[in-house]
Structure formats: C-alpha cells, structure tokens
C-alpha cells in the first residue's frame, strides 16, 4: 500500500495546476461559479480554456495517441479531473462518457473521425437518455429509430437533456428493435448532429438556475454510419461503461470549503467572526475529513483503472459518497451564514456573491442525476454484497 504519487505524476500535476492558476482568469472563474452542476455548460471563456487543455493533450490524457490522447496511465485522467474540478470545471461528456464508449465499441472510422475532436475539446456532446417515462427505468424508453436504406429515421422525445442547447452532437439511446424482449435488448446508441432538420429543443429551467432541455425528434434522418458499434447493443455499452464513467473527485468540495472558510473569517455575528465558533470549527474539520475520504475513494478507483482491475461498483460508491458530501457542504455553508445564506448573487450584502446560496440550490440534483443514490445503493447491495433480488 502506498498513498504517494510517482515523481512523474507529481510533476504533471504541478504543471497542470500552475497552468490552470494562470489560465483560470476572472472571466473563467465567474463562468464556472455561475454555471455549477452537471447541467452546466462551459461559458465561452471556459470553452476556450478547455480547447487549450485539449491542445495540450490533457483532456483525455489516457486515450491512445492515435485517437488524440497522450497514452498516459489512467491515474493521469484522475489527476486532470481533480485539478479541473477544483477550479469548477467538469470533464466534458465528450471525454468522460461518449468518448470511452466509442473507444471501446465504435467502428475504426468513427473512432478516427470523432475521438481526436473529443480529445481536443473541439466537439461537445449532450446526453440523450432520459424520457418522460424513462428516468431510473431507462429500459422504458420509447424513442424509435427505424432503418431506412443507408439511414435511420428517428422519432420521439427526450427530456432533462443538459447541454444539447449548445452541443454539437446528441449521444442518443433509442429503440431499434421495439419487439425485443426484454426491451433493453433492442436499444442502440447514435451520434446525432444536433443541427439535423427535425430536431427541436425547448428549455427546462432548473431550481439551480441551469438549463436542461426537452428535445423532440420529428423524422430526423441519421446516417447509418452514426450508429455506435452494433445495432441493439447500445444499452449494454452504456451499462458496461457506467462504472468506468463514474469518477467523482472531491476537489470541488475542497474549493467550496475554502470559500466557506473565507466567509466564516469575514462574516461577523454578535461581535465575533463565525470562525471563532467551536461548532463552526468542528464542522470545517469534519468536512475536511470527508473530503479526504472522498479523495481516497477517487484514487482507489484510479488505481483500479490503471491496473485494469474489473470495476463492478467502486465508481458507484464514489458517486454516492461525493454527491452527498456536496450536499452536506452546501447545507453547512448555508447554515452558518444564517440569514445571509439566502442572499443571491447580485444582492447587496450577499456573502461570496451568493455562491453558497447557489450551491445549496443546485446540489439537490447531485444525488439524483447519473443514477439516483437509491439505485446506486441497490447496485452496491446486489453487486458488492450479493444480496438477494426480490
């Protein structure tokens, strides 16, 4: 057992950290503050920064060089995610979700065409899974793709799709064989150009202030070469890669904690700064500890990826832990601010310009998206503990 990084890993991290310190300008920081959460798009300045990271081969450092990566061990992917998260940036879907599935299952043509653009940050994906009747029960989806010569014609509706209002591509899960039993045996994954005629997008505004979308497909024509891998294997591709994609650094929580501490040092109540309250110090110490636990769970996963150890639930564990930790810090930050905790960005007297007020609202979704924590706990119970299924 060894909890240290290699010399190369430490040097890489230092280089990346210094780069980000320089490149995360006030504009970028403001965009990242404004657009927190999984639904958050990268603002224009942040997008520029992601392109710079992509140009350095840092967005997808562990992909093979022939597909735009740097061929580095998987631990580097985790280091990048951790560093980016500290500055408020999430790994793009193109890199963390769509890319890996294409890498593992896509045709050589698709890999050569799409992956380098993903690795450079040049193309952006929006996920297309959820439908009004298919959330946790993804197998209940109904959007259909019917084969028609060299194309597929796609009809149906998606909802709660984040990013599609600015993304280049839709990462779409649809029924290609509605007769299949069980249903998930008839599902396929497509890469759809969001500029295609027949796609219409309506905003859904979330309580966190971010935008998600309803997406309607009305006889949208998609070339057959946009099918990812094999027909009717889409659901399996997603499930296989789900543990691979569930990577959750706790460094954004570290950042929030630092903001809370800053706040606690300046906000004075009854003549004393909040930080002088032992209860506040206990809370800060507790969160510091939990951030470390989250970090250890994150790097445990990194080592498993690096060593190609089969991952059955460790990503899910990380997801449950960090999502609830984000909520805990939001609650703590909000609690210690008392009445000030309700002041929004732009309001007079708002501590940290409303940052904690915002996190408190947006973080509700953390235990719901990407697999609700209830589903996750069931996965842990059945896969890790082999508990009986009803």
């Amino acid at each position, binding site marked *: *057992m060894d909890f240290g*990084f290699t010399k190369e890993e430490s040097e890489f991290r230092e280089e990346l950290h210094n780069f980000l310190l320089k490149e995360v300008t006030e504009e970028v920081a403001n965009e990242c503050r404004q657009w927190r959460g999984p639904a958050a798009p990268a603002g224009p300045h942040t997008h520029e920064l992601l392109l710079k990271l992509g140009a350095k081969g840092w967005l997808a450092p562990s992909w093979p060089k022939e597909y735009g990566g740097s061929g580095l061990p998987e*631990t580097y992917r985790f280091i990048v995610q951790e560093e980016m998260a500290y500055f408020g940036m999430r790994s793009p879907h193109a890199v963390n979700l769509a890319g890996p599935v294409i890498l593992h299952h896509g045709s050589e043509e698709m890999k050569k065409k799409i992956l380098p653009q993903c690795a450079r940050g040049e193309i952006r994906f929006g996920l297309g899974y959820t439908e009004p009747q298919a959330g946790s029960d993804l197998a209940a989806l109904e959007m259909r793709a019917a084969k028609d010569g060299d194309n597929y014609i796609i009809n149906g509706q998606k909802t709660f799709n984040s990013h599609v209002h600015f993304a280049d591509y839709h990462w779409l899960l649809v029924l290609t064989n509605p007769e299949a039993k069980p249903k998930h045996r008839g599902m396929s994954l497509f890469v759809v150009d969001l500029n295609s005629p027949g796609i219409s997008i309506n905003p859904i505004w979330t309580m966190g202030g971010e935008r998600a979308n309803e997406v309607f497909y009305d006889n949208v024509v998609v070339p057959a070469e946009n099918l990812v891998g094999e027909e009717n294997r889409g659901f399996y591709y997603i499930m296989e890669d789900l543990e691979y994609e569930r990577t959750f650094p706790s460094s954004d929580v570290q950042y929030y904690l630092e903001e809370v501490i800053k706040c606690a040092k300046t906000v004075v109540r009854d003549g004393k700064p909040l930080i002088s309250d032992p209860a506040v110090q206990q809370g800060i110490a507790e969160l510091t*500890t939990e951030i470390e636990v989250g970090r250890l769970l994150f790097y445990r996963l990194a080592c498993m990826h690096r060593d190609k150890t089969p991952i059955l639930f460790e990503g899910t564990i990380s997801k449950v832990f960090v999502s609830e930790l984000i909520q805990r810090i939001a609650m703590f930050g909000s609690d210690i601010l008392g009445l000030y905790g309700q002041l929004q960005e732009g309001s007079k007297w708002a501590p940290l310009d409303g940052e904690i007020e915002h996190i408190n609202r947006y973080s509700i979704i953390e235990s719901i998206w990407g697999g609700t924590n209830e589903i996750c706990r*069931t996965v842990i119970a059945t896969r890790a503990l082999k508990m009986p299924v009803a």
Partner: protein
Amino acid sequence: MDFILNEQQEMLRSSAHQFLGDKCPIAFVRQMAADERGYSQEIWEEIANLGWLGLIFPEEYGGIDLDFLDLVILLEEMGRFCFPSPFISTVICGGLPVLWAGTEEQKKELLNKLASGKLLMTLAYTEPGTHYGSTINTRATEDKGNYIINGTKLFVPDANVADYLICAARTKGDVSDEQGITLFLVDRQSAGVEITGLKTTAEDKQCEVTFNQVKVPESNMLGECNQGWDLLQRVMEYAAVAKCAEMVGGAKQVLDMSVDYSKERVQFGHPIGSFQAVQHRCADMFINIDGMKFITYEAAWRLSQGLPSTKEVSMAKTWVSDAYQKVVRNAHQVHGGTGFTEDHDLPVYFKRAQTAKILFGDASYHRKIVASQLKL
C-alpha cells in the same frame, strides 16, 4: 499509488485471520470478560512466537522489524474477532515510548521480554480532570535520587495485569502546562500503587490507578525530564490509529453478519435482504467501511513512512469513530430483535464500538486537532 496489500501483507492477514478465527470465538471473548486477568497467557505466548508482539521492534530487541502498516493489518484482524488482550496497551502504549525514548538499558531490560511475551505494560495518562489533554494533576516530586508520585489515573487499560505502568506525571509548571510533564516507568508492585477495576460497557479491563507516595528511582524516568508531552502525543497518534484498525476489522465482521442474516431471515415470504430498506442500510455500511479502511491505512502509511501525520491521524480517528457507530447501528436495525438479545454476538461489537470511539480521543477531540492543523 496502491490501495491493495502486497503479498507479504496478504499472508500476514490471512494467517492472523485463521489463527484468531480458530482461537477466538465470541464464547472465548465472553469468557475473558468474566476473567479477572482478561486474557489468556497461553494464547499470548503463542502470538509472541508468531512474532506479533515484536512485529515493529528492531531485531536487536527481539522484534522482526516490520512497519506500523503491517501491525495495522494484524490489529484489524484482532478487531474482527474482538480479541481480548493487552496488545495495544503493551505494544503501543508501553513498548513504543520505551523504543523511542528509553535508555539503552531500559530498552534491553524491557523490549526483549515484551516481544517474547514475558512482560506486559500500559500507559497511565487520563485523569479525572482530563482525557487526553495537558491538565495533569498527578505530581512527581524529586527526592534524593528518587521521584515520589501522587495522583489518580483513570481508564488505564490492563493496569490489572501490566508489569509496568508508564505514568505521565507533572514535574513542573502549572496544572495545564504542556511543558513540565514527565514519563516514569512504575513497577505495578510498588508500594502505594492501588488498582481498582472499572465496570465498563465492553467489560474490558480499564482501571483506576491511584499513586500514593509511590517511590520511583530516577533511572525509571523515561525520556527527558519535563519533555514528556511530545512523546505522549506521539504515542497517542499510534494508539489512535491502532484503535481505528480494530474498528475497521470489527465493522467488516458486523457487515458480514448483517448480510448473512439478511439472506437467512425470511419474512413476508422473502429473505429480508431482498427488501430495499435493508439493502440500502447494508450498502451504507459497505461505503462507510471503504472510507474507514482507506483513511486508516493512509494514516498508518504516513506514520510508517515518517511523514508528518498529525492531521491524517486525527482525520482517521474522527471519521472511523463516527462511521463505526453508523455501521453498528445499521447492523442492529438489520438484525431486528434477535440482535438485541444479550447472547447474540452483535452486542459484543456494539459495546466495543462505544469504547473504541472514545479511547485515544473521540471524534470531536480529533476534529479540534484537524481544525488546529488547518490554522483557521
């Protein structure tokens, strides 16, 4: 970076698991709770032969020179089986300060015997007015080449069987001064030492020890005069992590018991393990145990590597103390009424969880340390 045991550590773990699984059923644990000495000298000598007692001591003192992380692996198995013994008292609270601060004579005199199972030790630190702080009322006054010790110590583990007690006494300064604390090796048989067993939740052998004009030769001073505080805090770090390791082992056992039970117990025509509420409690236990493991191993690794560890040790003790509570309480919920009966195994773990959470600093004590490390 590596989160798994190496081959040697795996072997250590599995052999300890087998040994204790064989020698330490819960029936034996209960027997020792009722026993005056609280442990089996026969088993103690067996583990001495296995090298467990001298695991982290240098070969010249009868040890096998492995590191603290290796000891943590053993301690985890001891925790899994609730192994009743003066192991932490003797090896950590007694042996380590002697190793670090003893004179060559003291080390030669004590450590070899300790490693071979012929000497038990403990540390008398806590008092009525302090748990692990610096308010030491027990005084040691110099008197013609001896020190006279007066005071009361509480919650001294295994004092009833320890051959030597290391007593933290004040030699100068105000009652709460960190400077002015000195450690003394006190022979339990010395005149004026009185030991009373305390009746504790875990029925472990924690004692009140009163020192009434106890005369101790100057040569029994351990380390420098007035310099005992740093040594004391360092021992506490190792002891806290050792206790964390026990809690990790206990938690694993408790989870195994709960999952097994949930598969057997049938209600409403189904094993209760198929109910989501039960599954989710077990999933929470599993997540907590993963956290407990890694935060403990990280602290142990840092101590083994000689890296600054104060923050990590306190993070471990704080988190593990709280997490074990959650694990045990979830386990009780899963076990229902049957886990509440005195002759079920689960209460043995519950009781140890209550003790372990406080020994060597409870969660809020250690959070204070973390906060101070953050320089808030």
